[in-house]
């Protein structure tokens, strides 16, 4: 466990010089939240933007050919991968917490009221979106590097919108089971959490496999 944490800290030290830049990207979503008068919109954008910065650890590693340092350090490849995921998840959670404080503040100032339900559903949606982006991005970056891997970032966005479209348009929308699920927010959120955990486990396993087979 300790090596995983060390790997996460190492990734943080790589990104440290760019922390200010990353913080600035969190400002725009606040504006979107204000414009749309919606916490959900703001959080969705915030998670999208922060997911865009996950490539930093990869691009900085490539810039200095730091994979050689990773090749020298006494650490298992699986620990390196899990450590990077942990770092990315912490980045996401930090952005989420910041947004969950900043956006409601702005919205309240603008006269909007936010219910607990809005709050929780925005949080869960945020987590779900961030997970969706990153579980595809990270294996993509591991496999193709930070430049070609960029493509992977846009696929889940498209996929998510398409799925949303299909669900509302198709007869599946009439199924009893789906109806029950959609009408029970608690069930929906539980499902989302389980799904997130499962996605991350699969993604991590895939990334480890890719890294183990990678020729540096």
């Amino acid at each position, binding site marked *: 466990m300790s*090596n995983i944490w*060390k790997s996460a*800290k*190492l990734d943080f*030290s*790589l990104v*440290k*010089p760019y922390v200010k830049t990353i913080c600035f990207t969190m400002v725009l979503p606040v504006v979107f939240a204000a414009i749309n008068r919606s916490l959900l919109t703001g959080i969705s954008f915030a998670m999208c933007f922060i997911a865009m910065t996950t490539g930093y650890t990869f691009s*900085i590693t490539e*810039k*200095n*050919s*730091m*994979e*050689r*340092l990773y*090749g*020298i*350090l*006494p*650490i*298992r490849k699986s620990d390196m991968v899990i450590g990077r995921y942990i770092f990315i998840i912490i980045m996401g959670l930090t952005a989420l917490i910041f947004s969950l404080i900043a956006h409601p503040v702005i919205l309240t100032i603008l006269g909007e009221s936010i219910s607990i339900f809005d709050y929780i559903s925005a949080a869960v949606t945020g987590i779900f979106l961030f997970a969706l982006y990153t579980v595809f991005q990270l294996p993509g970056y591991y496999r193709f590097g930070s430049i070609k891997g960029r493509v992977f970032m846009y696929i889940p966005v498209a996929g998510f919108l398409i799925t949303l479209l299909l669900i509302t348009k198709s007869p599946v929308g009439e199924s009893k089971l789906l109806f029950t699920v959609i009408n029970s927010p608690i069930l929906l959120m539980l499902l989302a959490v389980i799904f997130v955990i499962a996605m991350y486990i699969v993604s991590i396993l895939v990334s480890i496999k890719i890294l183990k*087979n990678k*020729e*540096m």
Partner: protein
Amino acid sequence: MNDYLEVRNLSKSFEGFQLHNITFTLPKGYIMGLIGPNGSGKTTTIKLILNMLKRTSGEVKILGFDNIASEQEAKRNLGVVFDSNYFSDEWKISQVEKSVSAFYENWNTQKFSETLKRFHIQPSKKVKELSKGMQMKLMLACAFSYDAKLLILDEPTSGLDPVSRDELLHILSEYIEDGEHSVLFSTHITGDLERAADYITYISYGELFFSGGKDEFIDSFRIVKGGCEELSTDLGKKMLGIRNFSTGFEALVKTEDLKQFAHLNVEPATIDDIVVFTSKRGEQYE
């Protein structure tokens, strides 16, 4: 634990290049030069030792630990210097220490700062502000701070001036002075090894040409020189490489074949001579 590095039948196939059955052993307390022309497989061999490339076959043991099955234990005792910096160039030296020391239980902070002082590296600088020679010394300083028993250097002197190269050799001789450390030094600047290396492993076009004592290596070859008319077909067959000019020729021969060339000028061969002559593949005497 007497052999710090054991490489057995190491092979790797790429498209267009094959590293084939590389075998050599580096005992503790000595310097081994890994030589060969550019592209011959030296860096590939080192990356295979570090498990940065997947080997096709073979075995590698570092201080007795298998480099794949016991990768973590093996790397705890290993220090590596590459021909260019592998830290984030935005890092300050203090950050380098923070990042690297976390992975080594026996990291000695005092040793690190003393070594930096000795190498004239200012701790307040960022990695990108250091010269190439300083960056190389920084990689060394890290390896010394966790008392790496085996040091592997991959072309550390390319791009360095002669003063820095000399300094490095001095640092390495001190490093092995207590008999408890070993160095694998891969280079195509063989002059650096001419005196200081104890062992030589010569890889040529992916094949192992020689592995053994340096004195023995140099002693197994001679340079013979003579006039054009003194070159017969029979003699030509015994030569490992030859240079023809209008006024005569120079060739590399095995010392054991020397009797046949006794009538010509015979000189000792340098490591450079041996590598250059044996690399002239296909340039046969005609």
